[in-house]
């Protein structure tokens, strides 16, 4: 038994070392530049496809320039881990910090500390408290939810519509905002929500809840998913019941390989983009590093992709 334990320990150690071989794929090396800037990118959770896309947008923009190198850290949805990531970037003396914080309150202090150390900070998507940062870049979920509601009212103009709403996690601000914006837009119209469920952004939950809605209501005109996977899950449920032709499906986020592809494929009727701002962050970072003054707040615009315009890249909202 002791021997087998030694063998196991040896195996585990060798696994550890082999996996470390993969670890250096994390940072971007670039060459041929007079001054090389290092940017720290602190991401709160790469478990979400939308955030994977944000990092991909940062990377594809950063790849265009030779004089910047981005180091990525993923806090795996852990506030304290993200806090130490910020502190690590500060002690590594990066030239600029991009942070997409998990929560405002606990990360405000670390961001201020970075500012105090002379490192400019771009805050992406979720805000921190106060104004001790260089720039905030983000989109507005209330506006996007509202746009979705307005689109439904317009599309069904006067005929009225029975809507199933499959909501994102209702304890998270994006879920609440997408709900409130939508409800505000349909208020007073003849669009009526007949079934709502908190699917916590997850597609399997959405399919489950949609099946319940289908078995309960014979007449459903539209499904509003707070994200594209929710709308997709609802579509699969409707398809299994043979009712996908009677129902329209709309979602939010419009990731290229998700929502936009669903619209192209004829699964969703519309998707509203919730931009990651990853590319804008790099463009702004270059300005900041060049010593230019930048706007304090940038609210990102959204795009609408429908069956008609998806091949031409969608249209800008507003």
């Amino acid at each position, binding site marked *: *038994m002791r021997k087998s334990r030694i063998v196991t320990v040896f195996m585990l150690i060798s696994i550890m070392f082999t996996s470390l071989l993969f670890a250096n794929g994390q940072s971007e090396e670039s060459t041929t530049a007079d001054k090389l800037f290092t940017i720290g990118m602190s991401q709160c959770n790469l478990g979400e496809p939308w955030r994977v896309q944000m990092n991909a947008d940062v990377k594809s923009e950063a790849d265009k320039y030779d004089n910047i190198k981005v180091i990525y850290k993923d806090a795996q949805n852990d506030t304290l881990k993200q806090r130490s990531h910020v502190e690590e970037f500060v002690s590594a003396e990066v030239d600029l910090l991009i942070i997409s914080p998990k929560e405002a309150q606990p990360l405000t202090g670390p961001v201020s500390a970075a500012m105090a150390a002379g490192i400019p900070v771009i805050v992406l998507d979720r805000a921190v408290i106060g104004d001790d940062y260089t720039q905030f870049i983000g989109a507005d979920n209330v506006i996007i939810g509202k746009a979705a509601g307005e689109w439904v009212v317009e599309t069904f103009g006067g005929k009225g519509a029975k809507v199933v709403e499959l909501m994102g996690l209702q304890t998270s601000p994006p879920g609440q905002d997408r709900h409130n914006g939508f409800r505000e837009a349909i208020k007073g119209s003849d669009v009526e929500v007949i079934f709502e469920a908190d699917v916590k952004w997850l597609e*399997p939950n959405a399919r489950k809840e949609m*099946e319940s809605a289908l078995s309960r209501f014979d007449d459903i005109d539209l499904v509003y998913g707070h994200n594209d996977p929710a709308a997709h899950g609802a579509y*699969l449920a409707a398809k299994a019941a043979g009712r996908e032709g009677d129902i329209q499906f709309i979602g939010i986020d419009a990731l290229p*390989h998700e929502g936009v*592809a669903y619209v192209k*494929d004829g699964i969703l009727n519309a998707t509203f983009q919730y931009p990651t701002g990853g590319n804008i962050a790099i463009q702004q970072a270059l300005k900041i590093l060049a010593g230019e003054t930048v706007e304090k707040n940038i609210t990102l615009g959204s795009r609408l992709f429908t069956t008609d315009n998806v091949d031409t890249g969608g249209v800008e909202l507003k």
Partner: protein
Amino acid sequence: MTDSTQTSALMKEGRFVRFLSSSAGRATIAFVLVMLLGLIFNADGAFFKLGMHRDALRQASVFGILAVGMTVVIITGGIDLSVGSILAVSAVLFSILTLHLDWPAWISILSCIIVGAGLGAISGTLIAVTKLQPFIATLAMMTFGRGVAKYITGGQKISTYLTNSDGEVIIKELPRIFKVIDSRIMGGNIAIVSIIFLFCLLITWLFLAKHKWGRELFSIGGNEESARLSGVPVKWTKFLAYTVSGIMCAIAGIAQAAQETQGDPEAGGGYELTAIAMVVIGGTNMAGGRGGMGLTLIGILTIGYLEKILSINAVPESGRLLITGVIIVLAVLTQRKNRN
């Protein structure tokens, strides 16, 4: 106690009562309670539609397959926390092989099962040979497995939408195997995933009831030392238990991928808890040695129907959690044998 006088009075009614006081009978009481809940809160008659029952069974199927493997492990007195992660590995592997690499369906399925069995076997080795506690060994496998799923996908879902080197999205045809697994037979009344689940359950049930290995599992769970002394190959039997659980996870992962039409590296998060709840509500003892596949079937139906009933009534999340917690306690309380 009034309880015991009631019991003795009821005893006279014979076989029905004897059934009710058996483990299966107690498990059935919980199931009947949940069904009563459905009859009362029938969501404008939705509960009486055939489609609802078909969907309830289909939704419970992936969890059910996990619970089958979990039952085997729990009978030995162990636990398997890694089921959700191994499910995810299998789901993404199946999607990569069929969607991206265009492998034939049966080779892909076989590969997934081999990988699932392999991961289960690693847990089994750590527990049976290295003598790690099952909770710790499978906790490690849960973390490791999730890492594998994320590593081989790069954190992205594996779907029919591929991005080529120019950043353009190409839409691929969904392979036939996905449609086959997510289809229904018998006039559209039974989902294939439900058949797969029932098949897994039946085979494992037969092994537990008829095969020597089944008896050995129970004897290890009852008393490992006396099982060893009476000549039971303890290490081998335990190793097999976790391997079987790994195979079930692989099958569940394929069913999950087919229903989602994609492989999600985040799939199956928290599924281990539902699977454990199903096994426990059925009446299989967490300490090992007592239980069975029939009991687990009742447990699976109880939780499956409970979720469905809460869902058709559009009960808010908070209410669902409250009610599910209460039902689990009630069900396990009815399970408890009189101790006098």
